């Protein structure tokens, strides 16, 4: 059961715990046995993990690189802290479904698939955060004297 890995020139990846970078030509590799493989586009560094969903991705990535649930006990606490936080912020059906899948895939040893689900969560988070552009930046000082956005005012008047 081999995995074919085509690397572009200078592309980086992690293969079986080694940080690998390709030379200046296209490379076609065949990984014959089961090992951790992470392509450059899927590698998340700690600095890049600047949102909650990305942090979740980062921790699941660590679990994967450690060799799975049995070897990564030190990361479980952080994992659950982060997903609880996400659930608290947004206990929606979409989020719960994704997080349930992530957890179950980690339990079943399908860490790579769990990473794919984490990417879905990142996408979801991105979509929500981009909608905030419509509302505009929040002022953490609630006493500020600002006009409410128009649609919120409409809701207030309509819903009362």
């Amino acid at each position, binding site marked *: 059961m081999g995995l074919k890995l085509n690397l572009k020139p200078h592309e*980086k990846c992690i293969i079986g*715990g080694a*940080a690998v970078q390709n030379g200046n030509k296209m490379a076609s590799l065949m990984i014959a046995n089961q090992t951790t493989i992470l392509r*450059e586009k899927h*590698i998340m*560094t*700690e*600095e890049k*993990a*600047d*949102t*909650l969903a990305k*942090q979740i991705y*980062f921790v699941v990535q*660590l679990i994967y*690189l*450690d060799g799975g*649930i*049995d070897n990564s*006990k*030190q*990361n*479980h606490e*952080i994992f*659950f802290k982060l*997903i*609880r936080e996400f*659930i*608290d*912020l*947004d*206990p*929606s*059906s979409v989020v*719960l*479904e994704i997080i*349930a899948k992530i*957890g*179950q895939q980690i*339990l*079943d*040893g399908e860490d790579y698939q769990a990473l794919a689900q984490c990417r879905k969560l990142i996408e979801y*988070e991105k979509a929500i*955060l981009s909608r*905030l552009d419509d*509302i505009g*930046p*929040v002022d*953490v000082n609630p*006493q500020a*004297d*600002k*006009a409410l956005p128009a649609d*919120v*005012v*409409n*809701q*207030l*008047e309509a*819903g009362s």
Partner: protein
Amino acid sequence: MSGITLSASIRQNLLSLQNTTKLLDSTANRLSTGKRVNSAIDSPNSFFTARSLTNRASDLNNRKDSIGQAISLLQSTDKSLSAITSLVEQAKAKAQQADEAATGGVNNITTEKATVVTGGTTLSTSFSANATAAGALFTDIGGTAGEAIAINLNGNATTVNITITVGTTIASVVSTLTALNGITAVYNTTTNQIDITGNGGTDVAIGEGGASLLADLGGVKLDDIAVAADATKTFATANKDTDLLRDVFGVTDAQTIITRVTSGGTSTFTSEDGGSAAPSTIADLISAINSGDTALTATYNTTTSKIDVKAAEGVAVDFSGTGFTALTLSDGTNSLVAGTDVTYTKLGSAAEVGALTTDFQTLLAQINALIGDAGYKGTNLLKASATLDVKFNAKGDSKLTITGKSMEVDTLGILSGLKFTQKATDYDFETAGDITAAKADVDLAITELRTVSSTFGTSLGIIQTREDFTKELVNALESGAGKLVNASLEEESAKLLALQTRQALGIQSLTISNQSQQSILALFR
């Protein structure tokens, strides 16, 4: 009603009023059912998701339950192993005590056994018909004055010569012969022969000296004939009073065995092989040792064919000797080599050692009983190599196999799984060798128990990690399902605001303590 501008404070009040009203409604509903979403009608999407999440959670709960059984088994096994280890350590203490008390009681003198020679021949002389009485003169029966009969006993260099003179009678020849230890000479008047028999253990060689006197008598020429020792004595039936050290132990002539009790008496024993004095019997050696000091008791053990020398409590004994080669004194550990001295200073009383032996044997029996009881709900990981498959998922392809150990006594009654080398009742601390074996065996058992505990401990750790992970996941999902949000706009806004606030507050650092993976990932900056 557009175009109304509200003041900030009124805006705030209105917002909270809005939320409060909504909250009141949903709270009333929630209180009556305990669930946020009552039916599909309230919110189809949320209801069905909640359902599937509850199903997921219950699937995870089922996995957790079967993992829990395995955990209980491993915890129970671990308790048994601790109890067994404690018993083995007690047994170790008994063996050590026995060693310190030591078996000064029994120092066995082991010896090499002489080869039993076969034979038992009676040599007979024959005389001419003229010799009808013991008083007849030798010269009358053909002997010549001045002739000598050479008698050589036991291959000694010494040869005894009997010189025939004019007045020598048959009887005197017979009595001279008899006076030589190791042979019996009798004048057989029926056959007119002097019957010469080697006593048990004596080789008699009758040689021709000078003229072959006896050979001339009656025409029977006597060559050098070795009369062998009596072959009926074997070691098992050796009689200490009559059987010779030479036959039973191969002791040759003039070997000395000296027993010395420190601050006490000494005995010196010099072996005889019959050449110049009566050959030494086992009893002779024993009485010599016993005569040395009242603290010493020597006995002949017919079961083991050994001479057991016991010292009284507190007595130091040493054995030494000079010049002997066939006799070896040893207590299983130390040996006396010809020409060298060995001092034995073991002390002890048989009663104390006996009690320690009993304790040791009892502990071994208790250990076996504990092994038998180490099971949990029908599975015993310490008996007959049970195995346990712990499934981590419904498919069963994610699992852990735990292999048991066979620790109970084997078909020979020995706790061989724990590296013991004898069955319990065979350990006897009266024997130095058994103390040594017991001490070595308990150390191996302790090491084995540690190894087994450690292996089970690793399995337990893996399983517990999975149980904890599963529990946490279930809790997180259940608390989330309990908070499932209706798609209402106010709460949607609140959610969006919350997310944005968190972003604005900045991302907390994760404080991950996973050095190796972090360093790999850092390479990709």
